[in-house]
């Protein structure tokens, strides 16, 4: 790096009475500024670098700010990247929370009325809600993840396939148990327990993979709720699943929203410090 005796250009130009666009008053006449019509808008740092004259830059875009401004720029860009490439926990937890709360409530209401097995339409509504949440999840993750390749995409793909494989096997196990003559009650307990066990285990694994504590905690919670539901038996188990399971998702979503808001408030504060 050059040591031409000038201060590192990161210092606040306003501190010594210079205009805020970073243009020092004592600009060396020897700079090889190409005649592209915007000589007053260059950062001094690039003056000592070669000028190829081919960069058509927007006004002010290539100017350095003071250190606080540059740090704020880094933070806000990191926030933009996070929102643009990583799935939103609150959004996904919220979608599944609503699906579970409404779906299991329908099963519970129908199950208590029928004294045992919920009606076919109740299972249809439940299934439709779960499929909607699944489609929403897939579209959301796909939109955020598109355009990024490499190590994290491979991790995401393996994780996605884990869900598909596990649920395919749950289906096979349930088919086998039904063929062996399991009663309606056994099928209800087993289908819910197995599915929830897969969800819980994969949430815990996902939490470990991405160091997401809320996701891990949700996995633990879902496992406990599913265990309790198995002991309780239908139809009361569906009320437990709706309130504690769906409620757990919604609580996770709310906690995520609070953390997100606090994070963006912190970013806004650094921005205020940077540009008083």
């Amino acid at each position, binding site marked *: 790096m050059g040591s031409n005796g000038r201060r590192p250009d990161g210092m606040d130009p306003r501190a010594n009475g210079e205009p805020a666009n970073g243009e020092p008053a004592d600009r060396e006449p020897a700079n090889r500024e190409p005649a592209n019509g915007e000589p007053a808008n260059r950062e001094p740092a690039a003056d000592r670098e070669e000028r190829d004259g081919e960069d058509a830059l927007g006004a002010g875009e290539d100017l350095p700010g003071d250190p606080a401004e540059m740090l704020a720029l880094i933070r806000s860009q*990191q926030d933009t990247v996070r929102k643009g490439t990583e799935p939103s926990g609150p959004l996904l937890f919220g979608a599944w929370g609503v699906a579970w709360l409404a779906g299991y409530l329908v099963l519970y209401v129908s199950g208590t009325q029928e004294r045992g097995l919920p009606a076919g339409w109740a299972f249809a509504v439940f299934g439709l809600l779960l499929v909607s949440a699944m489609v929403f999840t897939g579209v959301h993750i796909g939109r955020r993840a598109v355009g990024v390749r490499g190590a994290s995409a491979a991790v995401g793909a393996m994780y996605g396939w884990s869900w598909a494989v596990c649920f395919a096997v749950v289906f096979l196990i349930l088919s086998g148990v039904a063929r062996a003559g399991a009663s309606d009650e056994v099928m209800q307990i087993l289908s819910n327990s197995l599915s929830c066990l897969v969800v819980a285990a994969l949430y815990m694994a996902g939490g470990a993979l991405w160091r997401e504590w809320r996701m891990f905690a949700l996995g633990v919670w879902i496992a406990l709720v599913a265990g309790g539901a198995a002991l309780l038996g239908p139809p009361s188990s569906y009320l437990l699943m709706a309130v504690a399971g769906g409620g757990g998702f919604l609580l996770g979503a709310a906690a995520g929203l609070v953390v997100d808001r606090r994070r963006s408030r912190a970013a806004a504060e650094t921005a205020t410090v940077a540009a008083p």
Partner: protein
Amino acid sequence: MSEPELDPVIHAQARLKVVATLASLGAGDRISFPKLQKLLDMTAGNLSTHLRKLEEAEYVSVEKTFEGRSPATFIALTSRGRYAFESYTAALKSLLKGAQ
């Protein structure tokens, strides 16, 4: 003690934003040109110019490939670029501390 030097290659808002974006991705990840453009909210020509400068400094690697039959460009931060970004961030922080 002398003040830390700020790397002139990334001590410019546009290129700092590009490098900060790439550094926010996981190590070993690469991003498509349109996605990068969207995250940066820059014109394609502008982004190409900055990427060329960063590539000359060996801070980023640009890979031209095919997605099916259509050409696609993927950009990644090199380990040299990641090091430069981390040094730059550390220098900014020490400048801020010195100013207080």
